[in-house]
C-alpha cells in the first residue's frame, strides 16, 4: 500500500494554463501508453515473477510510475 508524502519528486512550477499542453499531459497521465497504465501493468506482472529481484524491481518501478499522478 501507499502513503502520500507532502513533497514532489521533481520541483515543478505551474506557470500558466495551456490547453494544448494539458492534452499531452492528460494522455501521459491516463492514456493507453500512460504512466498509470504502466504502473498497473508492472504491479500486476510482479505476481507471476519467479525470482525476488524481479518481484522487487516491478514493485518499485510500478510504484515510481505512479509519481506523476501524485503531482496533482
Amino acid at each position, binding site marked *: 500500500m501507499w*502513503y*502520500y*508524502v*507532502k*513533497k*514532489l*519528486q*521533481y*520541483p*515543478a*512550477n*505551474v506557470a500558466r494554463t495551456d490547453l494544448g499542453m494539458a492534452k499531452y499531459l492528460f494522455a501521459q497521465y491516463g492514456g493507453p501508453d500512460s504512466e498509470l497504465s504502466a504502473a498497473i501493468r508492472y504491479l500486476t506482472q510482479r505476481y507471476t515473477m519467479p525470482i*525476488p*529481484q524481479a518481484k*522487487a*524491481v516491478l514493485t*518499485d*518501478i510500478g510504484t*515510481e510510475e505512479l509519481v506523476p499522478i501524485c*503531482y*496533482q
Partner: protein
Amino acid sequence: MYSKDALELLKEIMAVDFVVYELALFLDTHPNDRRALEDHNNFARKSHQLRAMYEEKYGPLVLDSVSGFPYQYINDPWPWEIRY
C-alpha cells in the same frame, strides 16, 4: 508563510530521496553489490535525519507523523503550491 530556509531543506530532501530511490532500484537487481548498498544506507540515513529536521520545524510530511495541536498536516503550502 513558507520561508527560503524551508524551501532549501525541502529541495535537499527531494534530491536525497531521489538518490535513495535510484540506489534502491539498482539494488533490486544487484542485491550483492556492497558499494551500492553502502551508498544506499548512507543516503537513507541522511534522508531520515533531514526529514526529522524538516518535520520538527515546518510540520508533517506524512500523515503518520506526530503533530502538535491543531493537526498540522493539513497546513499550506501543499507541494504543488510552492514556487521552487
